[in-house]
């Protein structure tokens, strides 16, 4: 069983940027886990988010709808957000549903961090 405060999805921080890893299937439950983790990171002071889709093989519309909610939350907090390593099929879906208008895509995590580096502020530890 998970420890009480263990994160629900894999994540780590690079400076004030949090990198959150999506699982193989992005649906309601896994989407909510990502949302929860992103909110937690923002509450802890992160100023930018990278959501990494390198493991993600399949997404559904509810999962995408939750991603849009995360983008809204990040915008409200003034945080930047980048999606990294999204496969072609998923990119197509994001484009169809207009998600790519609101978020930058990066080839991989390094590129995402590089994209966000201009926005780096004082590092925090948590």
């Amino acid at each position, binding site marked *: *069983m*998970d420890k*009480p405060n263990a994160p*629900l999805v894999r994540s780590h921080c690079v400076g004030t940027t949090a990198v959150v890893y999506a699982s193989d*299937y992005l*649906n309601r*439950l896994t989407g*909510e*886990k*990502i*949302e*929860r983790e992103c909110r937690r990171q923002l509450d802890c002071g992160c100023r930018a988010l990278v959501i990494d889709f390198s493991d993600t093989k*399949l*997404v*559904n*519309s*509810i999962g*995408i*709808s939750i991603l*849009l909610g995360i983008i809204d939350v990040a915008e409200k907090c003034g945080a930047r957000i980048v999606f990294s390593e999204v496969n*072609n*099929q998923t990119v197509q*879906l994001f484009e*169809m*549903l207009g998600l790519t208008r609101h978020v930058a895509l990066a080839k991989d995590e390094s590129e995402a961090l590089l994209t966000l580096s201009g926005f780096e502020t004082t590092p925090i530890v948590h």
Partner: protein
Amino acid sequence: MNRGSSSENFRRILGRVAPSDFVGRTDELAAVMAHAAPDNAGRGLLLLMEPSAGVSELLRQAYDRIFNQRNEVIPIYFAFTRNETTAVSAAIEFLNTFLQQYIAFRRNEPFVSNATLTLQDLLELALPADHEWVEQLVESYARLRFSNDDKALVRFCLGAPQRIPAGRGRPLIMLDGAQLADYLNGVVVLGTEVLRVFGRGGFTFVLAGLRRQILAAAHEAECNFELLDLLRLKRLSAKEASLLVEHVAQRQHVVTSEAARDLLVQQFAGSPFFINSFLQAAREKRVALNSYLDCERLYVDELFGGHLHRHFVYLLEEISPRLETRHLLIRLLWEAAAGEDQVSSFEVWRKRLHITAGELQEVLHRLHVQEFVNWDGTSVEAGTGPQAWKDYLKTRYRLDVLGEPRALVVADALADALKRAPHTMARHYKQIARISLREIISRFNTQRVPAVLFDYATFSRKYKGLEPERLASDLDADTEQFKLPQTVHLASCVAFNSDMRQISEDERCLVAHTFEDGIYSDAQEVVWLIADLESKLEVDIEVARAWVERFESLAGRLGFSRFQVWLISNEGFTEDASRLLARRKAFGSSRRQLELLAARISEMPVNSVVHTGEANEFLVVVPMGEDNELIAASTAEQIAKRLTFRPEAINQIKTAIVEACINASEHSFSPDRKIYQRFRLESDRLVVTISSRGVVPTNLNGASGHSDTTEAAEERRGWGLKLIRTLMDEVEFERVDDGTSLRMTKYVRDTAS
């Protein structure tokens, strides 16, 4: 199997169906059988039935079982029929039946029960041990028969079972009064007289009849209620009625589809009488009932000239024997039912029917007994009764009063019935899906549950996204508990304020009278006002405010000094709405919270079945939920690989199937909670059909429906369909009788194309 029907030598005597085919009244049959026990000697059992609830076969089955037991209990079954026009003729028929069945039992010769025999024949058939008392009975009858004392004759005939000498068996008299008319011609009121004879002790009997008639007659006859037991025969449950339809259809060799059977159950509200009559008509007309159209065509035929038509004609003739009054009555009943205010005064009815107060009292009493109106002595409420009655009334009104062309009325009736059928089923499915709300609240009984289950904002913050197991354990560890009150009365809001009908469905808006800690004092009394809101997304502040104010106003009008508002929405509430609820001390829960609450105070049903397919067509059935769309998606992947689809195309197929499954799960209110998937491989394409039973999602029809969501939010939830249409080459929705079917085709294309 019940005792009495298990023997290989079981003989069917009066029962019209084999014991194994008798479905839906198991408990009631057990109660009648138990009434034959020695402990109940001298007691009466009143079976109070709703009109058209059906009771005759129940008593005939009991007769057969008791006869076959061959112990000291002698079953006597007698049905009062419309053929008997006077109390005297009915009583004489009873005497004949009693002697016939007594002798059949004593001789252990069932065929005697069904033979056509005179009293003289019966005297000759009586066993030597019975000959003397039977002869005396017949002689006494002959003397009384030609006296002018009808009342004495009726009492003599009905009281005949009391003349059985000791040691010759103990009779259980079962009287089928479903058609018992207490207004038979003549001076003797039969219903009252029957109860006067049987209900004053000495007899072991069962009397079944219309609930409003039998109870009134028992009071009229000054029965000894200490010696009477009551059993209410309600309409069959959907499950029982469904089983009945299946059995009767099989027996009558009528082909039916599952969707048609479910429709019949709902349309006839589980009435065994209507179901039997209808399926009999289907057999007579050699009609298969495979679709809603098949059912409604036959239904309309029945309304205009079949069994249903004759049933209502008989009833109307009994209620109002005079043709002229009957004509006015049809007009008045329909206009009152169709009007806005269905309640009118006795005086208005008297003027409209042009009859005396005494005559009107009789008419209203008969209408009331049949539950076609509610009459309390001063005012009359129309618009009650089964749907078939309302449909019949409307057709008679249009034909007889308005003089409209028959073809037009028939066509309209058919169109109306067809349009109503999907709504009838949708209402039923929604009720199944929502039934938990009523059940959950009725089970409130001072249990302690996590308080967070009534607070969406906190729940969302603390628990959203947790795995079910972790969520359950965290909830167990949650220290903030809320003690549920004890529910003592639960009803639809509509029962308190009919205006609520325009805002919410009956079962989705409830008023629960409760007591905290189960202590019945003013200080502990709290009325819960509960609404289950239709919404695909989080409910916003405007909607939440409107409901809170609506309930506050209702509580003020009804004088609820302490009340608790509880709003439930599928996806919970926006932050603004949650803050408003907190300020107004109202509870707010999502469907998930409700399910968690239900799991803590009751057991929730579980579904799961999977079937396999054949040849180049594959049929997969998966239960809704639990990410089962992935099973469908990986099945599709395996099948698609056989046609050398490109990996991208396979992914597109998988995503489309996932979306179709989600759509089916989210919108259908499916009764069986299953998704049916058919994969058909053709030379150049894969055809996938996803279907589910239940409600047709409004967005498939292009209708917006009533929902408390913004356009943007609606659009976001319409993404699934948008994706499906983009990812597949052909997408076709087929509206079937009982839900939807989504047919998606993907063509194989080589890389170059």
